[in-house]
C-alpha cells in the first residue's frame, strides 16, 4: 500500500525525464527522485549492468553524453574526479534533472574462475 501511495505521489509531484541510450532506440523514464539505475530496473529493462546500487562496485558505470543531472559520492576505484567532470558516473548515484543521453561503460572485472561451469541444475 505504501509503495502504491509513494508511486502515485511521485508521478504527480516529480518530473519524469527520458533516459535514452546513444547507440540504440531504447529508452526509459526516470523521475528526479530515483537514481537512473533504479529507474531502469523499475522500467523492467536491462540496458545497464546492475551491481550493488550503492556507488561501490562500478558495474553500472555509464557516460552521460547530454543532459543535466545531480550525483552523489561514488567510489574513486571506478570513476576519477576528472572522469566524473567529463560525465563518467555510476548510474546508481545519479539523478536526472533533464532528459539524458547515456552510454554504458561497465568496467572489466576479471575473475579467477573463467574455466569453471557455474551452473549445475
Amino acid at each position: 500500500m505504501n509503495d502504491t501511495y509513494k508511486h502515485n505521489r511521485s508521478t504527480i509531484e516529480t518530473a519524469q525525464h527520458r533516459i535514452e541510450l546513444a547507440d540504440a532506440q531504447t529508452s526509459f523514464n526516470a523521475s528526479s527522485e530515483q537514481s537512473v539505475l533504479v529507474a531502469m530496473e523499475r522500467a523492467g529493462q536491462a540496458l545497464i549492468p546492475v551491481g550493488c546500487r550503492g556507488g561501490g562496485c562500478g558495474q553500472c558505470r555509464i557516460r552521460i553524453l547530454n543532459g543535466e543531472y545531480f550525483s552523489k559520492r561514488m567510489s574513486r576505484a571506478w570513476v576519477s574526479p576528472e572522469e566524473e567532470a567529463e560525465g563518467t558516473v555510476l548510474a546508481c548515484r545519479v539523478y536526472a534533472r533533464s532528459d539524458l543521453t547515456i552510454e554504458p561503460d561497465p568496467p572489466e572485472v576479471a575473475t579467477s574462475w573463467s574455466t569453471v561451469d557455474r551452473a549445475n541444475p
Partner: protein
Amino acid sequence: MKKGVMRPGHIQLRVLDMDEALQHYVDLMGLIEMDRDEQGRVYLKGWTEVDKYSVVLREADQPGVDFVGLKCLDEATLDRLNADLQAAGVATEEIAAGDLKECGRRIAFTIPTGHRLELFATKQQTGKWGVGNRNPEAWPRDLKGMKATRFDHCLLYGPDVPATVKLLTDVLGMDLAEQLVDPEGKQLAAFMTVSMKAHDLAFIEHPEPGKLHHASFYLDTWNDVLNAADLISMTDTSIDIGPTRHGLTHGQTIYFFDPSGNRNEVFAGGDYHYPDHEPVTWDSEQLGKAIFYHDRQLNERFMTVLT
C-alpha cells in the same frame, strides 16, 4: 584456537556517507552505536557481543574493507605470534594502543590475498548490550530492525588463497573447515575457523587483491532471516540474493548491500567444526549448489560485485 587466536574481533569498513551508513547499520540491521572518535569513525556492535565494539565505520571516497582484527587470548600471545609471523617472512607493524578507541596495541600484517589483518588482545569489555551478566534476561527489549546479534565473519576476495590458507593454518593456528577445489585440485575457496563456527574468515580466489565480498552478521533463526528480508523490502534496501541456503557451511542466508555498496549478509544456522574434523570439500562442478543451494546456479554478481 590452537595458537591463541580466538575470533574475528573487529572489521573496519569504508563508507561513502556516514549518516546513510548509520541508518543502515543501526536502524535497519540493529547494531548498537557505542562510540565515535576524533577521526569521525563510528564504533558499533551486535547486542550479544561482550567487547565494546566489533564494527568500525570510516568515511572515505572508496568503499571496502580497511582491516580485520583477530582477538587473541592475551598480550603474551601477541608477542609470540608477532615473532612467529616474522619468522615466517611476514612483515609486521605494531600500532600503538588507543589508535582504535579502548583497544590495546595491534600487530598488523598483510596476507597474500592483499588484505590487512591485525592481532590484538585487549579491548574494553562493556558486556552484552542491554542485559547484564548476572541473571540476564533473554534479550533487550529495545533492539532495532534485524536485531543482528554479532559480527560473525567476512568473505574476502584476492589472489593466492592456498598461500593464505597455509599462513593462517601454520602460523595463526586456524583450521580449514571447508573448501572448494577445481578438477586439478586447486583451492578456489577456503573457509577458515579458529572456533566451532563454520567460518571466521573466508577467502575466494580473485585476481585483484584486497577486495571485500561481504561482512556477515548472525541471527538466531530462519524466521529472523525472513524478517530481515521483509525489512529489506520495506526500506527499499538494495537486495543481492535470498533468502536462501548456502551449500558451503549450509547457513540460511540473505545478501544485501549497504548504501555504499558493501555487501552484507545476515544468516542463521549452519555447520560446526572441531579441530579434529577433516575439511569438507566441494568440487567446482558443483559450484552453483555450493554457493546457492536452492537455485543451484551462481549469479554473475557473486563473482564480480565487490568493494
